[in-house]
């Protein structure tokens, strides 16, 4: 039984004894019937991971400040550290958690990124001047076997993104070969999915093409962020229309793409890399117009609020606030915390991962924010991590004390 429910039982049973409903012996028997669950909360575990991640990133930043002072041998060892850690983790997953999709996905993703990091660090240590294309090509080729071994879709997305990046600048046979190498993976995935899965894949592809065309056609009179947010809102409108007309199995592709579109824009805006939109530009009016149509449809439908509304609201706030990085960062933080809490309460892994993904992305963005001094960033990261772990330890301690 959960600790807060046990607390309630403890208080109430004391009252029952005082009221003469039960005896003290009966109270003890009732309480013994409901032992406290000793299992840790997933939320606490996640915050512990986040705390460790912050401390790790902070240490890396402090190292980066004095990187040039380290002997080459030490730098090389540090470069291999993430790759070897990822391999050990993947070996553990392979042996003990091979049936767990989240573990396989997470492990393969970590391994791919660790390989990218190791090669980048070694090339940096020895000041190698290979082109970015050559570097990405080498890395994606070495991550390819991992996709098949772990059947990992997230790592596959990195491969595909890398292949598209490399494909533009290589002879024609290179993109063809890179695509051919990943086709069996798609075939295996499609064979394992239902008709709904196939329809979603196709819809996602179609929506991507349509959004790209829209982006292309609007780029002369609107800011890229406004265009992306308008696309996201239009997809939410499409999702609402599909719900209205009952094509239930078509929902997820439009909604997922809308979430992706709005999330990516929020994250990019938090970097302050683009967007200097005016409150009355054509792009703003377009975004607000689509949002109004969406709100009208939602109001007429009289449905209760659901998650799409949060994204629509975030998009509108971003457009109307003339999007500064601070507003975008606050929106990402709020969405991240909301989904972590929601995911851990409802035990919905996808929501939990999405929330964690948002928070980690925001941390990563600040990690690379060169406007703040390396050492200051490092110290702030370490302090935040220690604070998070400290709160975590305190809550765990309290829970143990109360369950004793």
């Amino acid at each position, binding site marked *: 039984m959960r600790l807060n429910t046990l607390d309630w039982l403890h208080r109430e049973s004391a009252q029952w004894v005082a009221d003469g409903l039960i005896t003290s012996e009966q109270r003890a028997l009732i309480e013994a019937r409901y032992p406290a669950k000793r299992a840790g909360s997933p939320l606490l575990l996640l915050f512990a991971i986040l705390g460790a991640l912050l401390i790790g990133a902070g240490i890396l930043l402090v190292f980066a*400040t004095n990187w040039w002072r380290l002997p*080459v041998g030490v730098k090389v060892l540090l470069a291999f550290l993430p*790759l070897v850690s990822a391999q050990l983790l993947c070996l553990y997953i392979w042996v003990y958690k091979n049936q767990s999709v989240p573990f396989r996905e997470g492990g393969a993703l970590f391994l791919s990124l660790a390989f990218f990091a190791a090669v*980048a660090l*070694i090339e940096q240590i020895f000041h190698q*001047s290979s082109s970015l294309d050559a570097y990405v090509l080498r890395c994606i080729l*070495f991550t390819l076997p991992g996709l098949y071994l772990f059947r990992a879709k997230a790592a596959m997305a990195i491969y595909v993104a890398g292949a598209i990046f490399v494909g533009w600048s290589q002879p024609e046979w290179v993109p063809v070969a890179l695509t051919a190498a990943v086709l069996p993976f798609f075939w295996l995935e499609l064979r394992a999915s239902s008709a709904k899965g196939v329809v979603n894949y196709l819809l996602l592809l179609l929506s991507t093409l349509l959004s790209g065309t829209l982006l292309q056609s609007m780029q002369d009179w609107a800011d890229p962020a406004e265009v992306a947010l308008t696309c996201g809102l239009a997809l939410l409108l499409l999702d609402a229309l599909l719900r209205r007309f009952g094509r239930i199995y078509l929902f997820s592709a439009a909604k997922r793409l809308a979430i992706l579109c709005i999330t990516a824009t929020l994250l990019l805006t938090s970097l302050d890399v683009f967007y200097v939109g005016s409150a009355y530009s054509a792009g703003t009016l377009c975004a607000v117009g689509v949002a109004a149509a969406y709100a009208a449809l939602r109001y007429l439908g009289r449905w209760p609020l659901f998650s799409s509304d949060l994204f629509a609201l975030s998009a509108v706030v971003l457009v109307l606030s003339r999007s500064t990085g601070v507003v975008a960062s606050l929106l990402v933080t709020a969405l991240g915390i909301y989904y972590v809490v929601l995911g851990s309460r409802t035990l919905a892994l996808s929501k939990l991962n999405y929330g964690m993904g948002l928070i980690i992305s925001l941390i990563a963005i600040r990690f690379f924010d060169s406007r703040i001094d*390396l050492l200051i960033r490092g110290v702030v990261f370490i302090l935040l991590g220690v604070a998070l772990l400290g709160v975590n330890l305190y809550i765990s301690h309290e829970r143990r004390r109360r369950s004793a």
Partner: protein
Amino acid sequence: MKKRSAYLLLGYFILQLALPGQLVCRHYHTLRTGESYKFQVRPYDPYDPFRGRYVALMPDLGPQGDRRGEYALLGRDADGYAVVTGWRDERPAEGPYVKDLQLDRYYMNEKMAPQAERLSFDLDLEQNAFYLLVKVRQGRYVIAGLYVNDTPIEQYLVNADLNG
């Protein structure tokens, strides 16, 4: 089946370690045992999204163009700085040489790279030596450091910071 997959996984891990491992072996050996050459350079400060901030360099390597796959013949001028005396399509039979000579980048942290760029504009290069120390061994080369008047540029920038 499971055993075969485990071997595949281990093989994959070894392959993954082999690429950076081979890069390290090759460069580390050259760095430790190679002959030193000083190339005079002028830096500027761009950014590589994966590998970070670096100082891009413009060394004088003789006639430019696409020199990939070619061998650069190395010599020294009267002041002891390295010069490229010529380019060959085939491996030279004698004399110091390097293949694919591209001294176009030197990685630094994001704080120091712009400072290094500013320094290169502020310094009078006629009065101060700004050079890249390169180790060369059997046609291979590794950049050992960027120097200002025989002081590593990182140390030079720290000293300049301390002296205001």
